[in-house]
């Protein structure tokens, strides 16, 4: 087994608030890890730290063997994060958004078309501006942009939120496929039943720590 995420006593702060107060976490390749916990427990911050987005104040950690303290930039090219926000440009159409994210990694037109088909944002929706989409459609667009990014670790913050029943099934299938293809998934979710059936392991995050 290969360890892809390893955190030891990681503290991360938002302003002066310790969102993470000493997290120890190890994740192996191929896992689908579910982070559970109440609001404000630190799930989002944990995902952001793993994405190399939030600097760590204390402790040590490696993501895919890369040191979190010194090489966050290198980590980012290899992970994909879907946060609370979708990271979409509201004045761009669905297709333009996905196309843009594809071009940052050099993904082909076929990959874009495939991703759009997988998340069912092709056809009529493709030309609609992201700002005019429903919450669920935006989530789908964001997921499609994530697919084209070919991440090795998928970090998903409430990915089921706003999706309809069919969308959730598609998402689950998508994640299983990604894991089968060698990716690792860490997701935070309140949809405990659905997420638990998907996950291979569950970790409870609370008070800025993880058990």
């Amino acid at each position: 087994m290969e360890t892809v995420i390893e955190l030891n006593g990681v503290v991360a702060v938002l302003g002066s608030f310790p969102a993470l107060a000493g997290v120890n976490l190890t994740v192996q390749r191929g896992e689908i890890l579910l982070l559970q916990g109440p609001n404000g427990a630190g799930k989002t911050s944990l995902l952001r730290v793993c994405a190399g987005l939030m600097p760590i104040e204390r402790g040590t950690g490696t993501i895919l063997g890369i040191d979190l303290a010194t090489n966050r930039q290198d980590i980012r090219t290899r992970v994909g994060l879907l946060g609370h926000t979708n990271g979409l440009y509201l004045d761009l159409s669905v297709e333009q958004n996905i196309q843009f994210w594809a071009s940052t990694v050099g993904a082909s037109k076929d990959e874009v078309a495939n991703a759009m088909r997988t998340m069912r944002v092709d056809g009529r929706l493709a030309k609609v501006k992201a700002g005019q989409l429903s919450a669920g459609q935006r989530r789908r667009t964001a997921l499609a942009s994530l697919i084209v990014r070919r991440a090795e670790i998928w970090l998903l913050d409430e990915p089921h939120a706003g999706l309809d029943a069919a969308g959730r099934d598609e998402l689950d299938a998508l994640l299983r496929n990604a894991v089968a293809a060698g990716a690792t998934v860490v997701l935070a979710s309140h949809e405990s039943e659905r997420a638990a059936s998907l996950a291979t392991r569950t970790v409870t995050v609370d008070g800025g720590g993880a058990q």
Partner: protein
Amino acid sequence: MNSAVTTPRGTGTRNTRILGVLTIILMVLLTFCGLIFSGEDINQGSTVRIMYVHVPSIWVAYLAFGMTALCSAIYLSGRNRSLIWDRFSGAAGEIGVLFVAVSLVTGSLWGRLTWGTYWVWDARLTSTAFLFITYIGYLAVRRLGGTHRQRARRSAVLALIAILEIPLVHFSVNVWRTLHQKASVADPNAKVALDGLMLFSLFLGLIAFTMLFAWLVIHRQRSLALEDAVADRGLDAAIEARREEATN
């Protein structure tokens, strides 16, 4: 910990106290030399006495901004990135802003006497005003928040940009003044014929103000270190509190 409470606390040490006392002595000496003993200038009359505080102030300002840039560069280039360099930059930047403000005001008072106006669009004055605003911006960026290291990196980069920008602003303002319209007033560098005692007073002023700068920057650096320490202690407490949330 206990023994520490009994000793007087603060940012001072024996050495800074000696430095402080020496500075005060030189300042008193400067006051006597500058205001009483030294003679009047042939062209400028008694107004030359403003020079003994004005020139050292702007000297300290330049020194301070130079130190800000230097310490920022050391911070960014250091392998362990010690925050002490960041605090020295911050302390020097703050003191530089203070002294540039002082020299702008004393300069305009002097200008009122010699040129008959508080402000002229002279190249040096104008670029000094820009210097002032630029470092106010620097101090504002220091206060943006975030962790100590975020603050340090952001402000160090900005300090280096500022030091690059200053010659450019100075050069363009300079060319602007000399090419565009000749300054209608006296040359700000109007030849002041300094006799021995006047020259002595000016040097005394430079030395006294440099020592004052050293004293201020040491104390300010230390009090900034304490501010950081308070924040860190706050963080320790907050981490404890945060962990306790979990057990409930």
